[in-house]
């Protein structure tokens, strides 16, 4: 079992990273609908996959 303190620590680190991203303008949106948001996420994921494939 993963202790809760460890989970909390991981979440806290991820939160700080995300806030850094947000403060430095590395974010997408705001999106008015969930569909727009999902489309953007899919696009970003596809871009990431393509970049990975090119590196190989």
């Amino acid at each position, binding site marked *: *079992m*993963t202790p809760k303190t460890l*989970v909390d620590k*991981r*979440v*806290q680190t*991820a*939160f700080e*990273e*995300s*806030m850094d*991203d*947000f403060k430095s303008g*590395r*974010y*997408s*949106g*705001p*999106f*008015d*609908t*969930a*569909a727009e*948001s*999902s489309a*953007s*996420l*899919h696009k*970003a*994921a596809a871009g*990431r*996959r393509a970049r990975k494939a090119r590196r190989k």
Partner: protein
Amino acid sequence: MRLIHTAKFEKDYATAPTDVQKAFDKQQRFLADNLQHPSLHAKKYDESTGLWQARVNRSWRFYFTIEGDASSCTPSSRIRSSSENRQDASVGIRCDPSTRPLPQFGRCYLISLPYIIRNLSRFRALGAVAGAPCRHALRTASMKARTNAMSA
């Protein structure tokens, strides 16, 4: 509610399995409509940072913060009926009416990773493998055998 996601979130989303991505898309729709949707199980995770947690599926969670008044994320009638939400609103999630994009909705920032609770799936797997009869079943079986012996 309007949605924003950070680069970190996009990275986590891209690395998540496809079924989790699909589940997240669905949950995101619920979140945009109603923070109190029963499927989300949304709750305040950390009071000091204003971090919220909601479910993607049984073993994955996502985290977010709400910019604006939390009470504006859900219909006001529900807020009045629920003491919990009244408490959340009074705790002071940042409220800035001047930057609120829509008059009746707050802004929701999706900020953090979908987090997997590995133990839950391990527990499920263990439960399936073990398949041993529980104590109650054993006790009732022995009681039945005893009564049968007595009657005979």
